[in-house]
């Protein structure tokens, strides 16, 4: 009898875990209906998406390259969310991280790799942490809603980047040539991340992100600070009663969230573009939220989720080339996925309640 009960519980748990997975096929079906309206064969379109993302070495490596910033931003979202804070500021935190990394790397072109590389990353992490910390402190000290302040911080970071890339940080070569493209100088080779597979874009940032995912898991579930962050997120009143300084941990979780997005910025400039560009963030701040959410806000769950959505981003572009469907379809599908995932929660909690009342 006991064994049968356990089996049933396992089945229930598996069902709950798999439920959000339905969100992607559902979103794809709605996307297919949209394609049909415009007389595009959805099967051809989705096949080119799949092929583009996972069908070749080049596609697969690009998918992992895209998944890297998604995972790092997503880890930040996980930490903040576990602390009961919704971090929508990933975009801005990533931008200031990338700016700091660029400024440091360009500023010290002759330092050896062993010194400059950690320094670059540290700068980005700090900058992202500050960018997340400001809304964190505003929340804990002055009660400012973090959703709104992080959105504002995104807009401010974007303008800061526009200013720096046209002014102090602009590539001197751009001024010489008179082209004035808003981008920084090429970073010194000493900070370029190592290529993992020759002839592809895949760089060691992917390993950094994977290691970070494991570290965040250990941090949240195996350390006392992580435990307190989760306690604050689960029930701030109970946490307060237990003597945990709730506001401190809320601010801390948002600051850590920012630090991870800042790290993502450093990985992008040192691993992919090798310079700071306009539009470097490319919406990772938002798609990172989708990835984290899809990974059930669990650091390890975010790994496959980031790869899936990285694949969407890469495949979306090959779909655009093959069947002339604008890659905006991918944003639409991402948006629908979020809506379905959050809507699916009710079924899990409904089933949980029914299980309880049935004994």
């Amino acid at each position, binding site marked *: 009898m006991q064994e049968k009960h356990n089996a049933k519980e396992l089945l229930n748990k598996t069902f709950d875990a798999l439920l959000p997975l339905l969100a992607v096929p559902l979103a794809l079906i709605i996307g297919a209906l949209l394609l049909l309206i415009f007389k595009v064969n959805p099967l051809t379109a989705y096949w080119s998406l799949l092929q583009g993302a996972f069908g070749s070495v080049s596609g697969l490596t690009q998918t992992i390259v895209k998944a890297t910033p998604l995972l790092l931003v997503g880890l930040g979202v996980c930490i903040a969310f576990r602390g009961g804070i919704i971090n929508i500021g990933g975009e801005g935190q990533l931008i200031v991280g990338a700016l700091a990394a660029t400024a440091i790397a360009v500023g010290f072109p002759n330092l050896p790799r062993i010194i400059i590389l950690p320094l670059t990353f540290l700068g980005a992490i700090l900058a992202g942490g500050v960018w997340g910390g400001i809304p964190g402190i505003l929340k804990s000290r002055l009660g400012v809603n973090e959703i*709104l302040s992080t959105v504002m911080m995104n*807009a401010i970071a974007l303008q800061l980047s526009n200013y720096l890339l046209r002014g102090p940080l602009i590539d001197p070569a751009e001024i010489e040539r008179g082209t004035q493209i808003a981008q920084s100088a090429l970073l010194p080779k000493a900070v370029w991340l190592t290529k993992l597979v020759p002839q592809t874009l895949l760089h060691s940032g992917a390993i950094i992100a994977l290691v970070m995912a494991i570290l965040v898991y250990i941090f949240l579930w195996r350390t006392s600070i992580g435990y307190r962050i989760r306690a604050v997120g689960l029930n701030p009143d109970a946490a307060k009663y237990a003597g945990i300084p709730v506001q401190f941990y809320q601010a801390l979780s948002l600051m850590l969230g920012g630090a991870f997005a800042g790290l993502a910025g450093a990985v992008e400039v040192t691993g992919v573009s090798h310079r700071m560009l306009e539009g470097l963030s490319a919406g990772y701040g938002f798609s990172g939220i989708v990835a984290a959410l899809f990974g059930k806000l669990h650091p390890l769950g975010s790994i496959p989720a980031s790869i899936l959505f990285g694949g969407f981003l890469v495949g979306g572009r090959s779909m655009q080339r093959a069947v002339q469907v604008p890659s905006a379809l991918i*944003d639409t*599908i991402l*948006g629908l996925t*979020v809506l379905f*995932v959050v809507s699916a929660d*009710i079924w899990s909690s409904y089933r949980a309640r029914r299980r309880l009342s049935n004994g």
Partner: protein
Amino acid sequence: MAELFTLPVLFGIIYSGIRLATPYLYASIGESFSQASGVLNLGVDGIMLMGAYTGFYVGMTSGSLWLGLLAAAITGLLMGLLMAVISVTLKAEQGISGIGLQLFGLGLSTLLFKLTMGGAISISGFPPVRIPLLGNIPYIGEAFFNHNLLVYFAYLLVPIANFVLNKTTLGLKIRAAGQNPQAADTLGVNITLIRYLTVSMGGLMAGIAGASLSIALINLFQENITSGMGFIAVALVYFGGWKPTGVLLGSLLFSFVNAFQLWIQVKGINIPSDFAVMMPYVLTIFALAFAVKRVSAPAALTKIFERGEN
């Protein structure tokens, strides 16, 4: 800089400030109803984008701006209804579902724009209507009484919203749903119905807000035309303390700073334009941090209503 204090410049800034506040007014007043009833709809920006697209596309193809406006309102209503289903019936986390709605609106409006129009085209939007007599006063007439109809309607909404929210039974029910849904429920208020109503109406207004951009102010549609205005609109609701008059003050303040910032850019005054663009956002953060201390949010804002528990 001394040029600022001349009548043409001052009234020019007032004119564009009044104009720029229009989309914020529609979106924030709609959003203040949904927040007053306890639902945070963070997807306003996505709804605005879809409203801007449908308003423009229908207006352009049918040749009737009013038909475009109607299409935008219906699109907004449908998206509001979607948000209501997700956040009221399916009880989803409101901050996150709003982000989903925003991504969805951004993606879909861009997709439709690229498939149906290809590139940005401009049309002649709602023409300015000069109000008789008042419109002829020097400077003042130009700044206050020579706008298009959608601008006037936006300001007319403030007293209407104020009346509905504070002087009618419906308004009382809305506020009760946001302050203490359990108590209101026991008194026979249908919380679900009220929240459906406010969130869908909020959506409708956000749709009109989007259309006001594409067929009455900028008169074109382009990818991500709102560039985050919907998020500002949500912030303005907090700023305005969930009161239509407060929302009006917030929208005006934000838009005047913006108009001033645009003037600085046009004049080429020695402030990098990026910092000028930054000003309204910095101001909003400061306002949220220091100005909005006295009013507290609807107690049940973002809280899911579970009937018969507790």
